[in-house]
């Protein structure tokens, strides 16, 4: 499978995701934000980091870059798009995903391993996971507090568009298990066609037991499936 990783000035998880994709046997290419066309790809990844320093609002400025027009086109044509962390923020700023990511409720950057629960495992991105499976995945962000309006929240629920929710190690979805204040503990969502996934946790950090664990592997193998 061919993948492309979009690199913005200030992206800093671009190498990490590239390593993960290559380890999972994707044929990956890095795409600089000033490019005006995308290489042929089955998967486009918008990586984590601080594109444009997170200035103004995280993701806002990257959302105006040249290459984003191409990403939008490809997404509308059904290409798989994965936005991780800052990538998720960028996807909401472009409108490819609805809602917004506000500052963490404790107003601090948070880096830690958190538990998330697989809510919908019947998608291109999650089919290798079991439903309700609990994964331990690292988060690292300042603005991961997902917010959306009641209509969209209803749509998310009705159409099963929630990918992951923060939970505790037993799978409880309560406020204590919510690191950043996200609405309904949401940590990742799909668009209505389920070809776009935005998530705050970093699956690319969880592919190697020496460093962490391998809970992120199945996200990539689902895509390959």
């Amino acid at each position: 499978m061919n993948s492309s990783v979009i690199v913005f000035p200030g992206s800093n998880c671009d190498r990490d995701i590239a390593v993960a994709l290559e380890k999972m046997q994707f044929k990956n290419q890095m795409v600089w934000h000033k490019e005006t066309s995308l290489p042929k790809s089955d998967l486009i990844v918008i990586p984590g980091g601080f594109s444009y320093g997170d200035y103004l609002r995280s993701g806002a400025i990257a959302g105006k870059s040249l290459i984003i027009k191409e990403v939008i086109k490809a997404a509308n044509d059904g290409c798989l798009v994965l936005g991780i962390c800052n990538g998720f923020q960028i996807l909401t700023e472009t409108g490819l995903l609805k809602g917004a990511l506000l500052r963490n409720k404790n107003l601090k950057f948070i880096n830690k391993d958190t538990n998330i629960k697989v809510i919908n495992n019947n998608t291109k991105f999650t089919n290798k996971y079991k439903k309700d499976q609990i994964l331990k995945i690292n988060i690292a962000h300042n603005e991961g507090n997902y917010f959306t309006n009641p209509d969209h929240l209803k749509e998310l629920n009705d159409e099963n568009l929630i990918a992951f929710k923060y939970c505790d190690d037993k799978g409880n979805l309560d406020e204590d298990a919510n690191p950043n204040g996200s609405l309904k503990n949401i940590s990742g969502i799909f668009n209505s066609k389920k070809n776009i996934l935005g998530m705050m946790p970093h699956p690319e950090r969880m592919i190697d037991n020496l460093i962490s664990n391998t809970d992120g592997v199945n996200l990539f193998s689902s895509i390959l499936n």
Partner: protein
Amino acid sequence: MKITNQIIQKHGLKIDEYKNIIKLLKREPNLLELGIFSAMWNEHCSYKSSRIHLKNLPTKGKQVIQGPGENAGVIDIGDNDAIIFKIESHNHPSYIEPYQGAATGVGGILRDVFTMGARPIALLNSIHFGCPEHFKTKSLLNGVVSGIGGYGNCIGIPTVAGETKFNSTYNENILVNAMAVGHARKDKIFYSKAKGLNKSVVYVGSKTGRDGIHGASMASAEFDENSEEKKPTVQVGDPFTEKLLMEACLELMKDNSIISIQDMGAAGLTSSSVEMASKGELGIELYLDKVPCREENMTPYEMMLSESQERMLIILEDGKEKHAKEIFKKWDLDFVIIGKTTDTKKLILKYNDKIEGEIPLDLLASKAPIYDRKWLKKKLPKTKINFKSLKKIKIKDALIKILSSPNHSNKNWITDQYDQMVMCDTAQKSGADAALIRIHGKDKAIAVSVDSSSNYCKAHPLSGGKQIVCENWRNLISVGAKPIAITNCLNFGNPENQEVMGEFAECLIGIKESCEFLDYPVVSGNVSFYNGTNKKNISPTPVIGGIGLIKKLEKPMNHKLKDENNHILLIGKTFGHLEQSVFLEENYSIIDGKPPEINLINEKNNGESVLEIIKNNLAESVHDISTGGLLIALSEMTMGGSYGVKIKKPKKLTNLVEYFFGEDQSRYVLEIKKSNLENVEKILKDNNIYYENIGVTQKDYFEIEKEMKITIKELYNINNQWYNNY
């Protein structure tokens, strides 16, 4: 314009020094030249008070590629891999504006490392605050921690270790030391020494503003009556631009375009241009009208002294200008040729073709003043603490008191604010004795740790200096790494005070002794004097940052207990040294007596034996014993996991407190499986190591037989309260 005594003083120069400038220059300097002298002759750039002491440090070794004198130290870790690292202070700026001060501290040390061709792979910090009750402490702590995180997280380099301490000695002068560690190819290291005539001198990075021109800029405002008031401004960091600058430099470093490169740190354009040219025994000519400026009407004086961040100076090979410019353009950074190398051995500054300043370079470098300041020796304190007069305290109560104290509380509140995992090579995060960073794409790893102990150093600087190197060494050993070399940040008071100068001189003797004995050379460092006021100087605080190597990382070693029914071995002799201990400080507010002694022979033997045990895969967990003594070390091994310990009461020592809280040095605690015990004991006996088998691991409880029992969960909670309630 007349240079008055007042102007001289505002530039931080002594009248004698000014007279010396006139003698060397054979004329009076103009204001621009005076500013340049003041920048190059100040303590920070010239090391005038410290140099004669620093030169005694051991700086060579089998694995040392570059010792002190460059932007950072370089060591060889085999297979064409080099590690480049350095620590630096940003104490004063952080006290004035904690967020920006700490952030720009991180930015500055990162540039020192990537200037030499390394991709930074880890950040560490050593931060010292006044006592928690002091009205400034809370906001300083908040600002510093978010500043460190703000910069490191944004640029995408993991912050993996550090130390955080509270002590009233820092009430008016906090310490913020940042350390950066980078990885480079051994055959691709870049130095600052200029070579060749007529080479382009290129300015890259951010534009120059009036940041950090400090007192000097106020002085300048007075000379020019028409100029509007120029307030001294704090430097503001821009990690986003630094990230671009780093990527652009690393990209340009891939081929052979660069002759030499130097970041603009303290004294900005002045020190970078002077250092490059004087190291190369060349001259340098700068066209200041070409310098990219952020503000209107900036004067040559301001351009030369500005400390705007995220800037570099590069000397390029002939014909590489276009290629280099394209790279910087890609990253949206300024790239301007602002000068050339010459054979004049002078710094010549032109503005619109007019010479504004002209100084022979040796006057700024080799002829800068060096002082052999008077210093006082400190006797080993003789005070005997009368233990009998102290109120009795239960072991358990003392343990709880220490674990819940600000200095010994869990630091998750801090470390959760740092991205520790970005780059995906952090095999061991904060919370262990040392962090482990895998070399990208390989199976080796380095261990990193920073340490200090100001109470020991205050009580007896020589012992304290010795101790702190050993403690750092021990922390690397504890994670199974072979210690290779250190960097050091020497935070002291006013060097014109003989007592302070004595603390400095003796700490360095101590550091030297340990480094020599342990074959643990110093490859880079930084001196920060004038911490505190002349009447109240801070306690001497040398901070040691060490790097160790693990050739093949199979399973990260740490201090968390792994299973039940394993043996607990205490390595090293326990005498029960309580003077200067955390036990006395936290329970009785006594900070008195002499620090524990170091026996370097034992230190080395114990450490090497522990390393042998780890290398042979015979230990489940390892922890060194540092402040707080045995009981604190044991409790740290249990907290956050599921296994506790059951410790036998010692027979020999009558005083339990001394046994459990004494801070005797060179000791470790090891968790050993029953099946490995014999092999471990053989290693220890063969190496003549003193050890005791003090108990076993068990589920859930932390227990000293017939003395105390507490659940490890409770211990954990006790240890995790302070920051969250602060």
